[in-house]
Each structure stands twice: as structure tokens, then as C-alpha cells.
């Protein structure tokens, strides 16, 4: 009520979300101690950011969908389809660079709109819609590429993800940061963003409050699809080819990043920076364990444990308020 109280409450609220940030720094600290010379190098830190980028971009789209109360399992397949399409139009001497760029994002957007329309007007559980479209889109990627990687792309195309800004900062990181910044703005500042929370929080209330719930749903799946298209473009550029089997189970990583970061699977709650932290945690664990030369089978055990423990710390942190 008073200004004082408001800022106190605000501090309380944001402190609550800090659990996972603390968990993140804990993980960092452990890795720095275990591998001071390798892990903590500036170049390796940039490397981690780069490795977090594609998942981070997908997770951002996923965050919108999950906050609205949905789920999008189709992003991994969309990454593959968009990548295949991008590479197909990126052969040297054929089309200007803008063509593969535009097409891949349009393909993603189209997939997203289709998901959104079916979820909104078909009234089908999003899990089923996107499970179906995940399968369909994977089929399309295989058909579009005739089941084989599409390679022989231009240097300029390779440079989309592979280039650097100011010599040190990879384009991928710039893309990640830009997507994050724009998404954070849309989610926290705009009418649309606010309505995404409202729809996920209580759909009936949202409708009675004059919100066109269907439009919001179509909106979030479009964002997710669009960003999956972008991620597909970036992945194709990064692996200098369009691979129809790429992006498998990327949806799980994207969901994991969002949920580790505190986005509620039942919708209505979640913060953009939580999702960023979630994506970073996943990348850091992968990078750290590789550097420590942990055998890949043990890596699985450690990764799974860290994910659970990180969220446990987060939950317990909140509970102690």
C-alpha cells in the first residue's frame, strides 16, 4: 500500500526467485575449484555462452508457451526443417543470403501458427497437438532433404552463426542476447506479455476480462515457432549444413531450461531471467563435465542429479520464506 511496503514486497518476491541463481553460482564455483585453469578462462566462458545460445533461444519461445499454459514439443523438429530449408537455399551462387534467412524463419513461423490455430480452435491438449506436429514436421524435414544432409553452403551463410563481433563475441551470443532482451521486454512490458500470464494463470478469468484467449495462444506458438526457425537457421549455419535429423530432443532441453528457471508447468508464472539461468546451467554442466573428462555415462548421472538438486535448492529456498 505505501511505497515502502510495495518495494518490500517486490524485494521479497524477487528474492524468492533467487534460489536458482544461487544454485547456478554454486555450480560455477564448484567447477572453478575443480578446474581452475580450464573452466574459468574468459574464452571458455564465452564458449559456454555460445553453447547455451541455441537452447536459450528455443527455451525463450518455450517459456512463452508454457507461461500461457501450453507446451510445444515440435521445436526440435522445426529446428531441423528450418535448417534443411535454409541450407537448400544457401548454395553458392544461387540465391541472395536473405532468402535462406527469411525462409527458415517463415517456415518456423508457419509451423508455430499451425500449432497455435489447432490448439486454440481445435481445443486439443497442446501436448497432443505438438506431439503430432513434431512427428509431421520431422517427416517434412526428411522429405525436403530427401533424408540426407544438405551441404555446400556459402561462406556468408556459415558466417551467420559462425562470425564474431568485435573479434571475440560470437554472433550466436549476440542472437541469444537480442532474443532475450526483446522477449523480456515483450513479456514484462507489453499488453501481450501480460495477457500471456493471464491466460496461463486462469483462462476463464482472462476471457471474462475481455482477453481474446485464442489470439494469445496463437501468438505464443507463433513466437515459439519463429524462434525455432531462427534456431534452425543458426544451427544449420553452425554445422554448415541442414540436417534432417538434427534437433532431436531439443524440446526437452528447452523445457528443462525454462522449468529449471522457475517457469511453472501449469502456466501463469515464470521469469525471463530464470529461463536464461536455466539454459546457462545446462550449458555449464555439459561444458564442465567434458572439461573434467568425466566419462559420458557418468555425465548422465551427474547431469540428472544436478538438475534435480538445483531445483530442489530453489524450491527449498522459496519454502523458507
Amino acid at each position: 500500500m505505501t511505497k515502502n511496503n510495495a518495494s518490500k514486497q517486490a524485494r521479497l518476491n524477487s528474492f524468492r526467485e533467487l534460489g536458482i541463481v544461487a544454485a547456478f553460482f554454486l555450480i560455477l564455483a564448484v567447477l572453478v575449484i575443480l578446474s581452475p585453469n580450464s573452466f574459468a578462462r574468459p574464452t571458455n566462458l564465452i564458449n559456454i555462452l555460445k553453447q547455451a545460445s541455441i537452447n536459450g533461444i528455443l527455451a525463450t519461445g518455450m517459456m512463452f508457451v508454457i507461461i500461457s499454459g501450453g507446451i510445444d514439443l515440435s521445436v526440435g523438429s522445426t529446428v531441423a526443417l528450418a535448417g534443411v530449408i535454409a541450407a537448400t537455399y544457401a548454395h553458392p551462387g544461387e540465391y541472395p543470403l536473405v532468402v535462406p534467412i527469411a525462409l527458415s524463419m517463415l517456415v518456423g513461423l508457419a509451423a508455430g501458427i499451425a500449432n497455435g490455430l489447432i490448439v486454440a480452435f481445435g481445443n486439443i491438449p497442446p501436448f497432443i497437438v505438438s506431439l503430432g506436429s513434431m512427428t509431421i514436421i520431422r517427416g517434412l524435414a526428411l522429405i525436403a532433404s530427401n533424408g540426407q544432409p544438405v551441404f555446400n553452403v556459402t561462406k556468408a551463410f556459415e558466417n551467420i552463426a559462425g562470425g564474431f563481433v568485435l573479434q571475440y563475441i560470437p554472433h550466436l551470443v549476440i542472437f541469444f542476447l537480442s532474443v532475450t532482451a526483446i522477449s523480456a521486454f515483450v513479456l514484462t512490458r507489453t499488453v501481450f506479455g501480460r495477457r500471456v500470464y493471464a491466460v496461463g494463470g486462469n483462462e476463464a478469468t482472462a476471457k471474462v476480462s475481455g482477453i481474446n484467449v485464442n489470439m494469445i495462444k496463437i501468438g505464443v506458438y507463433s513466437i515459439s515457432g519463429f524462434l525455432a526457425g531462427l534456431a534452425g537457421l543458426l544451427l544449420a549455419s553452425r554445422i554448415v549444413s541442414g540436417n534432417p535429423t538434427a534437433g532431436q530432443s531439443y524440446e526437452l532441453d528447452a523445457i528443462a531450461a525454462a522449468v529449471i528457471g522457475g517457469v511453472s508447468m501449469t502456466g501463469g508464472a515464470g521469469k525471463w531471467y530464470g529461463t536464461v539461468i536455466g539454459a546457462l546451467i545446462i550449458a555449464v554442466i555439459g561444458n564442465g563435465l567434458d572439461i573434467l573428462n568425466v566419462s559420458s555415462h557418468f555425465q548422465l548421472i551427474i547431469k540428472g542429479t544436478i538438475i534435480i538438486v538445483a531445483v530442489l535448492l530453489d524450491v527449498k529456498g522459496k519454502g523458507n520464506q
Partner: protein
Amino acid sequence: NKPYAFFISHQTNAFTNELTTAITTKAAELGVEVTVYDAEKDPAKQVSQIETAVNQGIAGIVIEPVSVDGVVPALEAAKAAGIPVVVVNQRISKAEAADCFVGVENVDGGKLEMLTAAEDIGGSGNVAFLLGPLGSDAQIGRTDGYYEVLKDYPDISVAFEQTANWVTEEALALVENWLQTGTDLKAIVANNDGMALGALKAVEDAKLLDQIKIYGLDATPDALAAVADGRLTATISQNTTVQGTTAMDTVVKLAKGEKVDPEILVDFVLITKDNVNDFLQ
């Protein structure tokens, strides 16, 4: 005294395990250290791992690539940094990005497998193909090999051709379903042993083993056992251990500044009931 890095596409079958073991054993023998990076079948992850390793500083790279072109820029960067690169088992799309390729010619493996099957069934009748994940180098090469052989056998027709993604239970269900159509199959030719064993089970369950011959590739221990029992007609070894030891050996040579051939090919070996005992451990 930097370590070497070995990048492998995954570590979840007999083939990749044998390759890894060969490399680590050879490294120990040579008195060098090697770090194993498992990409879990994700091409982007492998690229990240190469970047991470190069960033850490390494003496040399042996890589079994997930994706034949995806790793090229990363390898070029490594080479530019003066790190020797040996590609093992699967070719990359740009040979110059590596110093050496150690491996097999997958088309030849497919040819050998198909030729054996074609001869066994007397050059005519229906066959079915079980393919690896579409787009993988091994799937493409081996399947191309099948069709090259079929050019010489006009009376053999391909009744079914489908991917079972290297997975035994997928192959099993797929072949069960094919058999329901009552098609008179003479042979099932699989891109690898895991799938051949699934096919074998389906055919045995349908009590058709006396009519349908089954072929695999990789010479995995369970496939060898099945060949010895006379259930699997043949499998093909790609001399995995030789590939691994050669690759490790080569990269160390390169690191010492020695010259090596840009391509070292290892032969496939056909394994049937007749010679299986030489391969059983």
C-alpha cells in the same frame, strides 16, 4: 604434455565401444593422454565439444563425426591452430579439413553384404532392407552399395525398405509387420547387426528361418554368436579395433611432425559360419 582429444558420435553400442577402447588402449600403450568427448548423436554438440577442447589446448584430434559436414569449420579452425586432425570411420565432406582419414569405404561394406546375400539366394526373389537413421553416412554408403550390386541381379526385387534407426526392437516390429503381408521374402539385409538381430527374432518367431536369410554388419559379439549358431547367415566386420589403433597411432605421428598418408583404408571382412570361429573371443 597436452592431452589428445577423441570425439565420438555416441557411446551406446558395441561398435562405438570397441572403437573407444581401441583408441584409449593404444594411447596408453603410446604413453599419451586422451580425453573422450561423447556427442550423444547431436552434431551441434560435437561442434561445441571441439571448440571447448581446442580452447583448452590439445595435442591432436581423432574424431568419429556425427555429421559429415557439420564439423568441418571447427576442424579447420583446429588445424589452423596447428592441431593435427585424424578422422576415423566416417568421412567428412571436405577431406582437406583433416590431415588423415582412417576408415572404411562404407559402399564397399554394403556391396560385400549384398553380394553375399544375392549369391546365397541364387540371384532371384524378394529382399527387404533395414536401414540406419536416414542421412547418416553409414546408412547412405551401405545402402548405395546394396543397389550397386543389385544392378547385376535384375531378378532380385526390393519388396520393403525402411529405416529402423539402428534399433533392434524397431526392426523387430517392422519385420513382424512385413511378414504379415505374406510376401515371399528370400533375404533381409540390414545396415547393421542390431537391426539384423531384430529381424532374426521376427523371422524365428514366424518359423520362417528356413526360408529367409538374414545379413548384418559390424560383427558385434551377439551377431557373431548368432552366426556361429547358424541363425544369422552372415555379418561383416569393419575391423573396428584396427581402425581405432591406426587412428591413434596416426595422430601421434602427426603430432611428432611425421608425414602420413592422407587416407588409410581398412578392409571389410565377411564372416559366415565357416570362418566365425576366428572372430569369436
